């Protein structure tokens, strides 16, 4: 899966896992923050998104909260983290 496909997949997961209404993948800007400003997701969304991504990509998030805040910052950050984790596995 290339980066663009991965990002699209992540957006689809965000929308379906969080049951966001009226939003299409193209409405989500790759570099925009997911939490706070931008999409404005909340802490419950963060928990659920983490679970959905874990299920879909089989990745795990670190036990260090500051790292996770970084990974969840935007679609770009998530994609980078997931592909890094995936590559780490195949090596």
């Amino acid at each position, binding site marked *: 899966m290339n980066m663009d496909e991965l990002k699209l997949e992540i957006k689809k997961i965000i929308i379906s896992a969080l*049951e966001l209404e009226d939003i299409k993948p193209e*409405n989500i800007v790759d570099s925009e923050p997911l939490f706070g400003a931008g999409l*404005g997701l909340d802490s*419950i969304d963060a928990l659920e998104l983490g679970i959905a991504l874990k299920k879909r990509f089989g990745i795990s998030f*670190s*036990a*260090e909260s500051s790292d996770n805040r970084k990974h969840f910052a935007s679609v770009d950050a998530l994609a980078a983290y997931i592909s890094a984790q995936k590559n780490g596995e195949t090596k």
Partner: protein
Amino acid sequence: MAWSQKRIKTALCIGFLVCGGLVALVTGSARILTFYPALVNLFFLVLFGHTLFVGPSMVYRFAALKDKSIAISPYRKKIAAYCRKVTLVWCCFFIVNGSIALLSVFGETYRFWALYNGCIAYILMGLLFVGEYIVRKVVQKNMKGDFIPLTQIKLNSRDMDSIVCYQGRYTDGVFKTWQDFARDCTKMRHFLMAHKETQWILNCEDCYYFYVTFASLLQCRKEILLTANITPEFIKEIRLPGIGFLTDQKAPDSTDIAAIVEGPDAGIEEFPAIEASETRIHMYTSGSTGHPKAVLQRMKEFEEDNAFVISKWGHEFWKRKVCSCVNQHHIYGLLFSVVLPFAAGIPFRRNRITIPAEFKSLTDDSYVIVAVPAFLKRTVEDETESFGLKSPVIFTSGGVLTPDVARKTDEIMGFWPIEVYGSTETSGIAYRQSKNGLEWTPFDNAEISQNAEGCLIIRSPYISDPAGFETADLVEIFPDGRFLLKGRSDSIVKIEEKRISVTEVENRLNQNPYVKDSCVIAMEDRRQYLAAAVVLSPAGAEKFAGAEKFEINQYFRSYLAGFFEAVVLPRKWRYLDAIPQNAMGKRKKAEIKALFEKKIEDIHGISFAIKEQEEKKISVTFSAPESCDFYDGHFPEQKFLPAVAQFHIAVKVAEQYFKVAVPLVETRRIKFSHPILPDRPMILTISCDGSKFQFAYSDEAGKEYSKGTFFSKETV
């Protein structure tokens, strides 16, 4: 170095004894040999005895060698004192035992010598071992810290190296000590005293920075405005002239706490006294008036509440460390994750736990986990294996923890959570552990009663108003004082433990020039959330003409984000011509609610009503009218719903509800019991397990007509 010297000394002593024994053997002098037991006692007396003077005591050295955690235990001073006593007891034993051994040498015969040194001495030694073991277990069980509330601390209240808080896992060993706390409070007080503001807004993610600032503000007799919400609009509203703003969140126009605490050293000064009943702590909640509301609290009540919790669960706290996933700007988080552990001398975690995976790393020590139901639910719901936590104790508050989640928490995390019932106005007032029943037991001294509407009234030392506090919670009170909660009576709703007044959200929306009217309601399907129905003003209609609905939603969401936390921002939006209301002007809540409920679109002219819905299961009612084209071409003389139509309906409903795609050609199985006749009211139930869907058609009486399975492309 010191150790190796001691080892040499020890080796010399042992060498001396062995030599003595050899001399006795070689010379064959039994007389010398009989002194041997006395010499051994003397040797041990010296070995143990000298550690009483140079420390740490011999028994402590043995214990610390065996159990590495003693070195960083909050009770190491107490353990050391106990070990010293035990060392002393052993020294006395060696003196007495050695003396008897010595005297026995001068007996008439060797019989007594042999009996005592060969048997009795060993029995006595064994008894002492066993006795000490029993005493140790009792002492360990009662090992506890001292309860010294924040308002009564002095520099010498605790040892300078006692641990206040830790980072990450306790055994990582990254600590802040009493000395650090005293030093950092001194810096903070210097800062505060140099500023004239008498009221300060406080918001701090880091619990250590938070408490340094909190304590210093009280010590400088400042008023504290605690808020979890630091959106610029909210701060603007509560920050009247003359109010300062301290945070570690780099908010605009604020003072950075980290810069002060990590700033130049100002020495260590004595903690100024705090008058607990004169402290003023304003805690912001969402009030029913529709405006940000602060509840004024005092340390006096907080500390009374803490004292009760410690009297009830102190023995559990003192065996553990505290970690929390609850924001300390809310009363429960404040009391349980910071104020209480600090007062009880229990190390607390500096950083809040923000993702469930962090729990899995906390297997190094035993913890008290301060949690909320929403977090626990998401932590355990998808887990199948125990986290392997070391006998944790879990507290939860802020919302109802369903017995199901409580049981799952017990399975995965190893403890059935203790729920605490309370509110910002009342702090903790009752508790329950749902495995023992759903009734709540009031805290000691809490007097409960009901008002005319059936709402709970509480009077207790933890509430400053002697008249007590009237909650909006409907209750049933039993003769023994326990009670059951029956729901809330007003417009305040809880969204994943965040209390929010829907009126407040409506007021904010109505203040926006593009809004004419609005109605906000609480919804719950997969999760709890708010939904907003909005009537646009003419200006709004003009502004949003031609805009996508998503863009309008985003506009209002970011507008509201200026006032509210993300969790309470409406997730679903409907734009209406008017808010449905009855002739009396009362809003038709059910009708508005229906606008947001999930709907199943009509299929071939058949309409569906959702009967029950769960995450992985749905049941709908419908009846296929005779006019429906499903019957065309099949068995004209006896119309009934053919298999292909039954599949089609089940698949279409599943696709809509579970948002999946079911391929046309796919393994499909169906088993008929009875034909489905036209116009007959039917219930279709579909449950999903991964990509496998099972459906069944039945009637109201529960009679099954057919059932089958099909598969979707992706898993749910």
